[in-house]
């Protein structure tokens, strides 16, 4: 049984203009000790899916259906006490902007101590808490833990802040770490260091990670399996190597092509068009408005998931060879 299994998750947001239907029945799973990547352009619902797992969706969000199974239990139906235990002992999330994810008016010490204190069932002495904080800061490769603890967030650099966030996440990430574009707000060399650090930590701790990233080049070497999201749907999934070497969905093909290469072929053109409005998304395939291969059927029906090669799935009618597609 997978650690996390998301089944037909539908999430919308109530806004002034109406209901934004963002997540349109997505399915994915994460095995224990597995490194899973999610790619896709901005505003395609990646963060919404992650927030749904941590149950920190905004107040105007609407859960329209689906399940998130953790060890077979639906976390969306757990009571707050049960889920708080999971937040304290099993799952953690690292946010995109390290500056925004730390409370600006408390020292790292104040914040870190509370996180450690409340994640433990036993009463911990101040010395025990301190020892644990120092140990975790060292695991996050931060030198001078004492100085870091006495600092306010604004006194640290972006890279240091993200390491602090990672250290804090490690308090409770005993089974799953969710990293939502952990390097996007940092410069490229720091981003690379942060991703290496995350890889080292999840392998040492033998935990699962869901990594969201725009850096296709980096994610390629990081994760075992990858999901490609477009406009609130998962369009393709499979082992990382297969998806990158042999992308099947037209969106994945265009996405990989739009990464600039160093071989001097000029600047890639990107994908023409924009993500459709979530207020009134297309009835069939959500990529139909931008797809160079769009057919009549794409406008009418939502494409099922076809197994294009072993363990490699694409939701596209191009791979409809008469048999019925397989729903994951």
């Amino acid at each position, binding site marked *: 049984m997978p650690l996390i299994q998301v089944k037909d998750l539908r999430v919308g947001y109530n806004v002034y203009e109406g209901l934004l239907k963002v997540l349109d029945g997505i399915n994915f799973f994460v095995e224990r000790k597995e490194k899973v990547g999610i790619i896709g352009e901005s505003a395609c619902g990646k963060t919404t899916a992650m*927030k749904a797992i*941590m149950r*920190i969706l*905004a*107040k105007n969000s609407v859960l329209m259906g689906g399940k998130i199974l953790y060890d077979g239990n639906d976390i969306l139906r757990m009571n707050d006490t049960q889920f*708080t*235990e999971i*937040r*304290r*002992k099993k*799952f*953690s*999330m690292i*946010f*995109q*902007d390290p500056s*925004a*994810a*730390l*409370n*600006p*008016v*408390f*020292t790292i010490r104040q*914040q870190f101590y*509370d*996180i450690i204190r*409340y*994640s433990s069932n036993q009463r911990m002495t101040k010395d025990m808490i301190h020892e644990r904080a120092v140990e975790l800061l060292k695991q996050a490769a931060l030198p001078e833990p004492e100085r870091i603890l006495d600092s*306010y967030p*604004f*006194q640290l650099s972006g890279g240091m802040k993200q390491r602090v*966030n990672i250290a*804090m*996440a490690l*308090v*409770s990430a005993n089974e799953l770490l969710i990293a939502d574009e952990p390097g996007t707000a940092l410069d490229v060399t720091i981003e690379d260091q942060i991703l290496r650090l995350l890889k080292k930590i999840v392998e040492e701790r033998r935990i699962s990670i869901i990594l969201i990233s725009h850096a296709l080049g980096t994610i390629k070497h990081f994760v075992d399996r990858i999901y490609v999201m477009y406009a609130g749907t998962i369009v393709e999934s499979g082992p990382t190597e297969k998806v990158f070497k042999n992308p099947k969905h037209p969106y994945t093909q265009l996405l990989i092509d739009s990464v600039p290469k160093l071989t001097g072929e000029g600047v890639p053109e990107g994908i023409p068009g924009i993500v459709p409005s979530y207020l009134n998304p297309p009835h069939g395939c959500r990529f139909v408005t931008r797809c160079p291969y769009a057919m009549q059927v794409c406008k009418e029906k939502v494409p099922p998931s076809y197994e294009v090669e072993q363990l490699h799935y694409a939701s596209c009618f191009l791979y409809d060879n008469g048999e019925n597609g397989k729903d994951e």
Partner: protein
Amino acid sequence: MIARVLPGDPARLALGPRAPQQAVDALRAELHLNDPIFVQYWYWLSGVFTGNWGISLFTQRNVLIDVSEFLPATVELILAAAIIDLALAIPLGMLAGRMANTFVDNTVRIISYIGIAIPAFVVAIILQLTLGYGLHIFPIIGRLDQSIQPPPRITGLYVIDGLITGNFSVAANALWHLVLPAFALALGPIAQEARILRSSVVENLNKDYTLAEISHGLPERIITLKYLMKPSLIPMITIYALDISSQIANAFLIELIFNWPGFSRYGLNAMLSKDLNAIVATVMVAGIMFVVANTIVDLVVSYLDPRIRFQAESEE
């Protein structure tokens, strides 16, 4: 200085329309009113530091004595209002923000709009009529019951003097008299500050750091009362400073209505009777109180917001 260029002769006003011209001229000379304005300013400035603030034309006493008699009553009133203000604005704002767009929030919203819309003197009269005259819960006017002697003067604040000297019944009586005027004075600021606090709470609830705190599994109580409250208080406290400072000027209506022998009312009388030395002293004391109140609040804000504190240190 502006007081000097107002039309009307202060000496004539002091002596009344039927006084002979010689008497007026003599008073003008005695008050140095015929000297150039800079000379007059020098007389005044040197007097301020030696304790001679000039004679009030209205009370015929050194203005310093008047100020020391009337100021404590206003200070006591404003302090009481400031305490009621904080004690109500913070819980109301936090509650409304935490429960945004619920029944609780809407109730606080309606109370706030009423508080902002109704002037303090109307609130004062309504309170007098209902809780004072109607239900006899609170006294209507004055600082103490007529039958009670004021406590020995130490600070001039009856409640504090009563506590220091052990006259607890006097302190309690003085406190009882403070409730209505202080609440009437505080209601407007409470309403305004609760709204400001509510909007910072709503804003900070959607910040990544709050989501991170939730996803770390911190208890809701700790998140609300510690991690959410401290950053949310900063904008409110700044407005609070301005509100409290301007109370010095706003208090005169309340002092009139509650027959409170205070400094704001004294200043108003001084202006109406063109009592030059008293006007100047009123302006000066009000200015000093304004500066003191703002300094205290600046210190509080820099305690709440380390970014301000460290910025100041690094500039030194």
